[in-house]
């Protein structure tokens, strides 16, 4: 079965510092996508970053980057220069055919 595990229920980071959120997954697929979604208090889920498994290069979107380790089935999210607006729940996810599998989330607190 396809699973996604986020082992950090909560993380804190000082404003302007860097934080890394962990995610591991298990899949029997050879090609797949991985995602990080952000859910602020407004509840609106927003895609942060996406990685295609066949691409070796780590995806980057401005202050957000991933460390994708395919052999280890690890997909961590690094947020650089953290801002107060980054405070939210972050969900790691993968897709099996059409069905998304989400982790349980990590709540990120940003300290001023």
């Amino acid at each position, binding site marked *: 079965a396809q699973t996604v595990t986020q082992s950090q229920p909560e993380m804190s980071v000082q404003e302007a510092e860097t934080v890394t959120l962990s995610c591991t997954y298990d899949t029997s697929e050879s090609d797949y*996508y991985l995602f990080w979604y952000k859910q602020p208090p407004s*509840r609106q*889920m927003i*895609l942060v970053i996406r990685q295609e498994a066949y691409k070796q290069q780590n995806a980057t979107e401005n202050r957000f980057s991933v460390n994708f380790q395919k052999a280890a089935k690890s997909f961590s999210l690094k947020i650089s220069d953290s801002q107060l607006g980054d405070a939210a729940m972050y*969900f790691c996810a993968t897709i099996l055919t*059409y069905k998304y599998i*989400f982790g*349980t*989330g990590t709540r990120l607190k940003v300290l001023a």
Partner: protein
Amino acid sequence: GAGVSQSPSNKVTEKGKDVELRCDPISGHTALYWYRQRLGQGLEFLIYFQGNSAPDKSGLPSDRFSAERTGESVSTLTIQRTQQEDSAVYLCASSSVTGSYEQYFGPGTRLTVT
């Protein structure tokens, strides 16, 4: 264009009543998903629609839950004889089935069963 919209944004209902939640997907998105998110939890898959194919209902928790979608338009999620454990945020998402499979989420409906 417009994003995914859901209505109502909040719904309070008495135990035993039926409720209907609505989702308007992004125009042109053939895939539509419903999820349930209990307080402090992750997203729980409920049902998936793809075009005119038979929906994947494997995530519906009981026969009190049903959903419909006409073609590639609006979807409604109906919960009959609501129970307190049905209290949650119900999220809808739509996506194109080509390309990156990115899901676009609506703002959700917060359902409270008293």
